[in-house]
């Protein structure tokens, strides 16, 4: 019984790490432009699909497939920036948001046509290495890669935000866009970097999920995207650290809910926790001073 609980906690943390990567990307962009990037979940999907098809259709080895997927992700990020933020007036506040929604649907349709609506399958999963067994818990090498790369990426992001020129610019634009502009910060360029970083984070998550579960569906983007938004709100709007922690918490809560209540609760649990959080702490669990925001 304890062994099963331990395994379920590990299962939950593993998927939670992926959620964190996605939610952090949302948060980064939201912090800077104060708008949701509704194509964010589709970047996750595109990376996964490209990574899989690069292996099966182009015959590329795994590392080259991953590299290609990340390059495509950067291109998607640039397209999001150019098509939805750079040339769309922010005078109508919702215009960029609607544009990202439209772009997301276009990406979904392209992927669905490329795969005939079926999931794209990764040729290599679990990195073709044997599993580890620690105190009865089965840990795949790819689980460790997911946990480690999520932690490393989030630590690198935290360091970038606090200690680099770009990080300071991001915080400046997030804190007070007008003042940032007056200080000579190029808001458009900062927005572009925020989108590119967030898209790559989503792309890494998409590839990791593909490698862990063996396939990525062209329809997964919206589900993943909505989850990312929910996790971001629970963590505290615009708070990168909040998104990291609440991603892990949601993964854990979902895992335990499925194990002890049933699969029908997978999607429900996040939204129950979201409403509960908003009722008790509308600013989110980890909403802190502006300085901690991205």
């Amino acid at each position: 019984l304890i062994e099963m609980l331990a395994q379920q906690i590990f299962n939950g943390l593993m998927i939670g790490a992926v959620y964190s990567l996605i939610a952090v990307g949302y948060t980064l962009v939201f912090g800077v432009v104060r708008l949701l990037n509704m194509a964010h979940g589709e970047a996750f999907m595109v990376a996964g699909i490209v990574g899989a098809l690069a292996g099966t259709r182009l015959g590329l080895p795994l590392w080259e497939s991953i590299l290609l997927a990340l390059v495509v992700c950067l291109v998607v990020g640039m397209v999001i920036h150019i098509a939805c933020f750079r040339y769309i007036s922010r005078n109508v506040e919702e215009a960029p948001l609607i544009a990202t929604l439209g772009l997301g649907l276009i990406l979904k349709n392209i992927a669905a046509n490329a795969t005939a609506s079926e999931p794209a399958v990764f040729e290599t999963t679990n990195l073709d290495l044997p599993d580890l067994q620690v105190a009865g818990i089965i840990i795949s090498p790819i689980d460790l890669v997911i946990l480690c790369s999520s932690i490393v990426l989030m630590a690198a992001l935290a360091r970038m935000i606090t200690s680099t020129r770009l990080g300071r610019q991001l915080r400046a634009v997030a804190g007070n866009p007008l003042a940032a502009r007056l200080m000579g910060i190029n808001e458009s360029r900062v927005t572009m970097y925020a989108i590119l970083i967030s898209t790559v984070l989503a792309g890494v998550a998409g590839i990791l999920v593909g490698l862990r579960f063996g396939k990525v569906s062209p329809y997964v983007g919206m589900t993943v995207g909505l989850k990312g938004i929910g996790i971001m709100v629970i963590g505290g709007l615009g708070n990168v650290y909040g998104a990291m922690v609440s991603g892990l918490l949601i993964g854990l809560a979902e895992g335990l809910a499925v194990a002890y209540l049933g699969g029908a609760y997978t999607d429900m649990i996040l939204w129950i926790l979201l409403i509960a959080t908003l009722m008790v702490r509308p600013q989110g669990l980890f909403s802190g001073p502006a300085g901690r925001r991205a």
Partner: protein
Amino acid sequence: VNGSQIDLISYDTGGDNQQAVILARKLATENKVFAILGPVFSAESAVAFAQAKQLEVPIISASAAQPGLAAANKPWAFTAQATDVNVQKVVSKRFVDLYHAKRFAIITDVKDGWSKSVVKPMVEALVNAGATVINANDPVTYQTGDTDFSVQITKLKSLKPDAIVLAGLYTEGAAIGREMKRQHLDVPALGGMGATDTQLIAQGGDAVNGWVVPTTFWPDSPDPKVKAFTQAIVERAKLVLPDYPAPDKNVANMYDAVKITAQVMAANNVDGNTPIKDARLAIQKGWSEVKNFTGVSGTMTMDENHEANRSVLVLMVKGGSFVPVSD
């Protein structure tokens, strides 16, 4: 047929129930078709059948397998897919004989109508075959579209079953197989018609080796009729989808449904000049009298509930393809 060419008008419901209603009405009233072949899924068939009944046009789903759908919309609706009660009876007995499995654990998709409806026939068939389903009252559950099954498999593993019975579709089935392999739940699995698709193997890889599923169509059959059909479909499908593996039972069933409709029209002197009301009535009557039709997907007879009685094949996944399991 009788000197007239059949016009095929094709719409895509996208699996959406609302679209199925709109398009069924459009076909019946605007396009003034003699008969509707489709839709694909049970849920959309349920709503489209009701429209067809109201508009008095024959409607035949070649793939919906949920029992009672056609009976609720008689005399105009038909399901040409084998019913789950018959199918599970055959496949469960064969599985128990093959693996000598006694303790089964069931996992089901709570979001999919067919998956929910097949749980009962699956459990009953296994009990009749001399096995028990240890969690029949508390199945392990998931939802269509889930990709992470680690939690579910950990739970199934704790039940220590001899075999798994999957009341779900092939996409999630393939992912379940992969996770079973990862967590070393090394027991065979039994599926239903929803799991029988070449995509189960394409997506599940060697993790689904040894899985047993029922079908009405086996694309690798040595039967020359099936061979020719498979080759023709693959050639056409590859023009749009380079890695198309082979037609599945739904493709074959739809092909047979078109053939039956043409045969029924020919036998009842329906041609392009037949008044629409007479043509629809003749096709409806003809479909209700189909007996021992032999097509690419075996033999079929319509029963009094307008559900097809079909020959059932039992297949096992072996070395990356389906092979038949003999008696």
